[in-house]
Every structure is written in C-alpha cells, then in structure tokens.
C-alpha cells in the first residue's frame, strides 16, 4: 500500500510537471534548476476524535527533498512514542510511524522567501505493546493511508540554511471524524 501511494504521488508529480511545462515559461539560465533540502523538525497534528476531544500529537520528523524548477518532491518520516493510561497490572504503550511523500510547487523557487503549495500522501502505522501482569504482547497495526494538501513557506538564509513552515490538511481513512490539521516547522540544509 505504501509503495502504491508513493508511486502514485510520483506519477502525479510527473503529470503535474508535464502540465505545468506546457504553460509555464522555462526558468532563465541564471536561476537554479535543481535543488535539494535535508530538514528535521516537529510536526504538530491537531484532530478531534468522535467525542470532539482535541487530540494533539507532536512527533519529530525528518525529510529529504529534491527539486526541479518550481517543483519539489519530498519524502518525510516521523515517529513518536506515547504512553497511555494504565497501571502496573494493565497498561498499553503505542508507537506511531508515519511515512509520506509530498509534491510542492513554488512560483518563486529562487527567491529567499518561497511560498509553495503542496499535495501528497503517506501511511501511518501504529504498533502496540500491551501488558497484563508479567505478560507483554507487541502488535503491529495495518498501514493506514492518508492524503493531504498544504500551504507553506521556505526561507533560505546564508545560502545553505533553510527554515520551512507549512500547514496541511490531512484526511486519514476518510472517517467521519473529519480531517486533521498539521503544522510543520523544520530547519536544515538547502542546496
């Protein structure tokens, strides 16, 4: 499923790029054509569960992006350990792993401030450790796919340093709970 989604995103990127090159004037020679970024940061996710309680998670994320002109494709990975309620006799611990691929389009790819639009998708996998007295079991959950769209800004300082912030709306599983909002903040290197 994960491979399917990533390949779809790649395909979409190619298609989108093909469409855009038919409309957009090719970059001038002095502008950077290829670009890359390596970032780390925090992804804050806000969503409401079915009882309307706000659920907030803040896993650390890593991303690697490769760009061509106005387009950039980014692979992201984040993981988080979170311990839920329980006591010494009965408790549950979960860990979540999120892998995704995003395509972004920036109208001004060579300027210092680069606003962009993005879309993409990925999978979220939860593993659970459940304990009853001295017995502990670990279970890997299914990979749950999601898709999303976003808007963000990249800022490049001192030629190689990049700060990126983005707001995304992510629809996981198409549940009636509604979409989640993700607020990303990351820093790293840009080439």
């Amino acid at each position, binding site marked *: 499923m994960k491979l399917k989604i990533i390949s779809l*995103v790649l395909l979409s990127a190619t298609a989108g790029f093909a469409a855009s090159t038919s409309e957009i004037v090719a970059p001038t020679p002095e502008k950077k054509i290829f670009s890359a970024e390596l970032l780390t940061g925090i992804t804050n996710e806000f969503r409401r569960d079915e009882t309307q309680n706000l659920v907030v998670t803040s896993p650390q994320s890593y991303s690697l992006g490769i760009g061509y002109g106005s387009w950039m494709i980014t692979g992201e990975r984040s993981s988080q350990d979170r311990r839920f309620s329980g006591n010494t006799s009965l408790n549950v611990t979960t860990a979540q792993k999120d892998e995704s691929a995003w395509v972004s389009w920036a109208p001004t790819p060579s300027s210092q401030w680069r606003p962009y639009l993005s879309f993409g998708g990925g999978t979220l996998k*939860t593993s659970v450790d459940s304990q009853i007295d001295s017995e502990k079991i670990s279970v890997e959950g299914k990979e749950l796919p999601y898709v999303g769209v976003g808007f963000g800004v990249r800022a490049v300082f001192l030629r190689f340093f990049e700060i990126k912030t983005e707001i995304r709306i992510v629809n996981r599983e198409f549940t009636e709970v509604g979409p989640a909002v993700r607020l990303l903040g990351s820093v790293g290197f840009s080439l």
Partner: protein
Amino acid sequence: MRELTGKLLILLPFFFILSACEKLFEKATPKPVMARLPWPTADGSYHFQDIELRQLKDVAHLQSDLVSIYESPVPFQDGLSGSGPYLQYIQDADGVVIPTDAKSLQLLSLYAHLEKLYDLDLQLGTQASWPLNVGFEANFTRGEEKVENNALYIASNNALLFVPFQQPDLPLAVNAGVIGHEHFHSIFYKKVLEGSVEQLLEYQFLEAHTVAFFKRVFGSMSAALEPMSKEETVSTEPGAEEKKLRLEYLRNIIRGFNEGMADLWGWIYTDNADFISASLPQMKTARKLDVLPVLLSTTDDKMLEIATKRDPIERAYNFGTQYSRLFKGFSDLRAKRLGTEKQATRMELAKTLLQSLDGVKAEIVALKADQTLSSYSLLNHFVEAIPEISPEECRYFATYAQKTAEFKSPQPCQETPR
C-alpha cells in the same frame, strides 16, 4: 486543445489519489469481531487471548443490542446519563482488534465478558434482564464521599456501575469474576426481589415505610443506598424498634444470599475460586471460596449480630461467604463422586442454585406478619433442588448445618443417620 489537456493533467494526480483510497469509503465492522484481550485462565492468571465477539455492531462505539455502555455516567431516572464510549484501536494483519489505550482495553474486555455472561444466561435460562445499562468510571458518591475501587448493580436503573479504580492491581472492569458477580445481582433481582416487593408491602410490620423506600431497599441491595434507608427507618410509633430489627434482619439475610451467591456465580463463570484477589488482594482472606466452610449462622445468630450493631455490609458478606464456600465445597465433592468435568459440574450447580432461588422467593412472598425468613431458607431450597443427592452429600450439609430445626433435610437425607 493544448490548454484543456494541461488542465486535465493537473487534475490527474487528485483523481489517482482518490481512486486509490476508494475502498476506504467502505466502513464495515467485521462480523464476528475478534479482539485480543486479557482473559482469565484456569489457574486464575490473565493472559492475552483472541476472543470472538458475535454481537458487537460497532467496535469504536461499543454498540450492541445487549448493553448500553456509558462513560463517567450518573444514575438518571430508570437508566444512566452520560456519554457513549469511543474506543481507540488498531487492527493487526488478520483484522484482530487491538485497543491502543488502557481505557479502551478495559471497556472492550468488560463488553466481552458481558457477552459471554449473556451466553451463559441463555444456556441456563436465568431470565436476567437484557439489555443492561453499564457505567464505566461512573460518578457515584456515598454521602459526601466519592466511591472508588468498587462495582455495583442498581436494580432500579438495571445498571452495572464500575467506579474509578485507583489500585495498582487488575482493574475491576477486566476482572471476569467481578463482572460475573455484579451480573448475578441482576439475576437475583429478577429471580427473588422483583415482584416480591409489592407482596411484602401487605404485611403489617412493613407498613410504616413508603413504597419508594421498599423499592430502593429490595430493588437494590447496593451498599450505596445504605444511608438513605437508614434515614427512613426512623419511626416513633409503638413497636417501631422491633419492626426495625425485623426489617434489618430480613434485609441482611437477603443481602447475604445475594452477595454470597454473586461470589459463587463469579466462580461458576471463571472457575477461579479466588477471583477477587486479582483486583482487591486485601479481600482475599474474607472472600476466597476454596477454603473449608464454617457452621452456617442460624436465624438467632443473625438476630444477635444485628442487635450488637456490627457493620451491616460486613455482616451480609460474612453470611454470604458462609453460603458460597458451603456450595462451592459441595460442588467439589459432587464432581469427585460423579467424575464429571469441572465445567459440567459448575453448570449443574448453577441450575440447582437458580431453582433454589425460586423457592426462596416463594417463601418471602408467603411470609406472614409474625414470621421471619429463616437464615437456612436458601440451604433448604438448595438441598431440595439437588438431583439425586447422595448419602455422602447429605452428611456434608449436615456437618455444616447446626443442629437446629431450621435445617430441613430432604427425604433422601433423612434416611441417612446424621
């Protein structure tokens, strides 16, 4: 044309992504649901097992025709008032439901046991009242004090309440024996208390009290209602003290039967004679069933206890435990004699018990103003209901029954020298 092609290509990625996720629109709960839950084993310990849930319609909301579950509810009118549960869970590669937090794990375990207890009710024909209202982490106060580490059944609301559990031991909502114990109170209500309330009101010694009072007292043997009933038993009329004593005695005997047989039911359901200590180890000595019984208290013993004003709850449990240990010991003896499987023996015991409760109810209904219910009432009806009682079993009961006329040994036992 070129412009149109470009626009279509821009839309293409969204089409692909939506198509790939189309199947996610199908929201179907697997039926039956398999869930990995902490489940009791024969040695009394708990291990994770895959449990089949056949009546669960919606896992996330624990929707089923058998129970209405509420989180942090309060008793309201004839039911409960609170929000419905929302479970956090994942499914493994085989579709087995795995709760992802401790609360969800407790709720699903509680539901699973209730479904199994429903199956047991069907098998035994208990006439218990389903669907059942269930409160998880219920807000319940006794006087000014918030009740914790307990579970109770309220007949007027047909509700099983699990109040917040703060101990480091097995939560009560996961303890199969405790759930079986509380569920038995609903069976006892249906078998013994319901319908006998109105009959009891006809007798003179109860006339000083209101219908509402009796509905509370006999409609629920809940400890939580103790303060209310005490307030209302205050009366200045002549002979009030005697009436109060008789009422207190009757309540205590009935409550003793109820609590003792609820513990027995917990054992019948789990095959664990010490199910209570997994959650409340401080009660191990007082409540475990695999110890030798003691002489059964006579009516005079019980009257004396009440006159000396020992704690009413402790009195009821002590008396009830005498009974539960006596019947558990009998079941062991019978299994040994007949060489039957443990499960089959427990089922036979459950049937005998249910039959004997009918006899107790009939006796309560037939009580006259100057009569009291014998503390041996349940024993007499139980022994009478045992199919093909053996001389050895007769001697067993005779050993633990005091030499009193209250013990009415059945015909087969009378042929055996005591």
